[in-house]
C-alpha cells in the first residue's frame, strides 16, 4: 500500500505547499508513490489518518502549537518544508520585538484580540524526522525526498555551502560584481539559483552545519557593508538561529 500524505500550513505564505503543485512534470510520478489524503491547497478531503505529514509555515500562535502536537500524534513521519517551518525564516524577525508591540504595529488598537507568540520552527515544539529548507523549497529536492522516504532511505541534504554549486556553474562570484552574498555560510541544494541570476544569496536555506560566521562578517565588512548591514544580511532568514550573538 502506498504511504498516505497530508499537507498542513501554519504561519507563512503557503508558497512551499504551492511549490508541490508546481512539480508539474514529476507530480504524477509522485502520486504513484504516495496517496494524498489531506491538503487544503489541492483538495477538500480532511483525513484524520496519514503516514507522512508535510508542514509549511512557522509556529506562531498558541493554536499552532496545539495543532502541530496533534499532527505529530497522528503521523509516522513529520517533515517541515520550507524556511518558515525549518528555521522560522523571515517570521522570526518579529521576535526582535515584544509581542505587544508587534500586534500594535500590525493591527493597531485591534491587536489585543490576536493570539501571537514568538515565531519558531516546527522542531522547537515537536520532534521532527527531516526538514526541507528554502524559501520556497527546491522542487527537485522535494521529489527526491519523497522518493527516499518511500524507499525507507534517509534523504540527504548537501553539507557544503552554496559556493560549491555556484562554482560548478562557473558563475562570476557576485562579490566581484559589487554585490553581497550569504553563499559561503548557506547550505547548498538550490543550485545557487540567486547568484546564477546575478543576485547575492539571502541565506534562505539556513546555515551549513559549521558556518564560519566570523570570517563572513569580516568579508561582508571588507567588501563595504556597515556593521548594521552585515547583521541585516545575517538576520534576514536566520535570525532564529541561536548561534548569532
Amino acid at each position: 500500500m502506498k504511504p498516505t500524505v497530508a499537507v498542513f500550513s501554519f504561519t507563512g505564505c503557503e508558497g512551499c505547499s504551492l511549490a508541490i503543485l508546481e512539480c508539474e512534470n514529476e507530480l504524477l510520478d509522485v502520486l504513484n508513490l504516495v496517496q494524498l489524503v489531506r491538503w487544503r491547497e489541492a483538495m477538500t478531503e480532511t483525513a484524520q489518518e496519514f503516514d507522512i505529514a508535510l508542514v509549511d509555515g512557522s509556529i506562531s500562535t498558541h493554536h499552532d502549537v496545539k495543532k502541530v502536537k496533534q499532527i505529530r500524534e497522528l503521523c509516522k513521519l513529520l517533515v517541515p518544508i520550507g524556511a518558515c517551518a525549518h528555521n522560522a525564516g523571515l517570521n522570526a524577525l518579529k521576535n526582535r520585538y515584544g509581542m505587544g508591540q508587534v500586534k500594535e504595529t500590525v493591527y493597531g488598537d485591534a491587536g489585543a484580540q490576536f493570539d501571537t507568540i514568538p515565531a519558531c520552527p516546527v522542531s522547537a515544539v515537536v520532534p521532527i524526522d527531516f526538514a526541507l529548507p528554502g524559501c520556497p523549497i527546491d522542487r527537485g529536492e522535494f521529489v527526491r525526498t519523497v522518493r527516499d522516504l518511500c524507499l525507507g532511505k534517509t534523504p540527504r541534504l548537501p553539507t557544503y555551502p552554496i559556493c560549491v554549486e555556484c562554482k560548478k556553474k562557473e558563475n562570476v562570484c557576485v562579490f566581484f560584481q559589487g554585490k553581497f552574498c550569504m553563499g559561503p555560510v548557506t547550505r547548498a541544494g538550490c543550485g545557487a539559483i540567486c547568484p546564477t541570476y546575478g543576485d547575492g544569496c539571502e541565506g534562505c536555506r539556513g546555515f551549513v552545519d559549521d558556518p564560519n560566521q566570523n570570517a563572513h562578517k569580516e568579508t561582508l565588512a571588507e567588501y563595504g557593508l556597515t556593521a548594521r548591514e552585515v547583521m541585516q544580511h545575517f538576520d534576514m532568514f536566520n535570525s532564529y538561529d541561536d548561534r548569532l550573538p
Partner: protein
Amino acid sequence: MTLQVISVAEIRGLLAQLMEQGRVVAPHKRPGDRQWAFEDLTDPADAVLQYTTTIIPAKKYAFPPKETLLRYELGQAPSVTAVVDSEPLVLFGVHTCDLYGLTALDTAFADHFADANYLEKRAKMRIIGIECVPDEWCFCASMGTATIDSGYELFLTPLPDEEHYIVEVGSDAGDEMLKGIASREATAGEVSYLKTHLNRKITQERHLDSDYTALPLLFTGFAESPVWEKWAEKCYGCGTCNLTCPTCFCWDVLDEMGLALTTGERRREWDGCMLEGFARVATGENFRENRTERLRHRFFRKYAYLFTRYGKPYCCGCGRCVRQCLVKIDPVGVINELIAAHGKGGALIG
C-alpha cells in the same frame, strides 16, 4: 620546424576553419573585474586572446562537474550500461599553467585504473595554447610551469605589436591545422624577443622562497605547525579552491533512482577535500572534521603526497584558488610563512 608568425586576423580565420570541422571552445569575457570562462565559440571574434585565467580551468572538458557513469534498469531482467560520452573538441587559448594542469590530471586518471570517462574525452582534444597576461596572484614560475614544451598542437605568443603571434607547432595535428593559413617565418629579432619575453615571465613577482622540488622534504617539517590554524581561522571550508584548481580531481559518486523506481543512474560530481563531508565515512566518522585539518591536508596533497607519488607537484601556480577565495588564502603566503617559521631544513624522517 622554424617558428612562424601569423596575424590576429589569421588566428580568427583559423578558428573559423576549425569551427567548420567541429566544436571549438575558447575563453570568453564574463561580467565583473577580470573574469573569463571557457565557452563554446559561436563567433571567432568572441575568443579572448589576452587574459589571465578562467574561473574554471580547461579540466571541465575532460572531467565535467557532473557526469553519468552508468545507467541501470531494475525489474525482470535488470541491466547496467556504462556511459562514456566523448567528442572531438578543439580547446583554444590554454595557458602554460593549464597545460601543465592537464598533464597532471592525465597522470592521475591513468594511474591504477584507467579512467575511460576522462581518458576518452582527453584523447579527442586538440589544444591551441596561448601566452598569458600574468596578474598579482600568478606564481607559475615558482612551480616550473611558466613555460612548457608539449601538450599542445600549436602555441601562440604575442609580439609587441599585439597584432602578430609567434606560432610554435607541437604536433602533426598542429601542422595540419596551419594548412591554408597564411603565415611567414619569424625573423631573428622576433625569435630573440620570444626569449626575453619568457624571461620576464619567469621572474614574476609572486614567488615561493624555495625551489619547488624541495617542497616534499620541507613539508615533512610542517605537519604540526601553528601556521595552519592561523590561516584556517578565516577559511569557510567552501571548496572553491578545490573546484577551481586545474590539478584537483576528486569526485563523489551518487546513485540517483528515477521516481518510477525502475531505472536510475550512477553519477559522479566534483568534490573537494576542503568540504566538511569529504572525509566522512559510512559509519558517520569524519577523519578531518575541522577546517585546519582540511586546509593542511589540501596543501600536503598538492606539495607533498602527490608530488612524491607522481614525481611532480599537484599545483601549477595558476593562482585560481586565491583569486577566487573570498578570504584570500594564498598558497605562496602560506608556504612562505611556513618556511619562515620552520626553516628550510625539513624534519628528519624516522
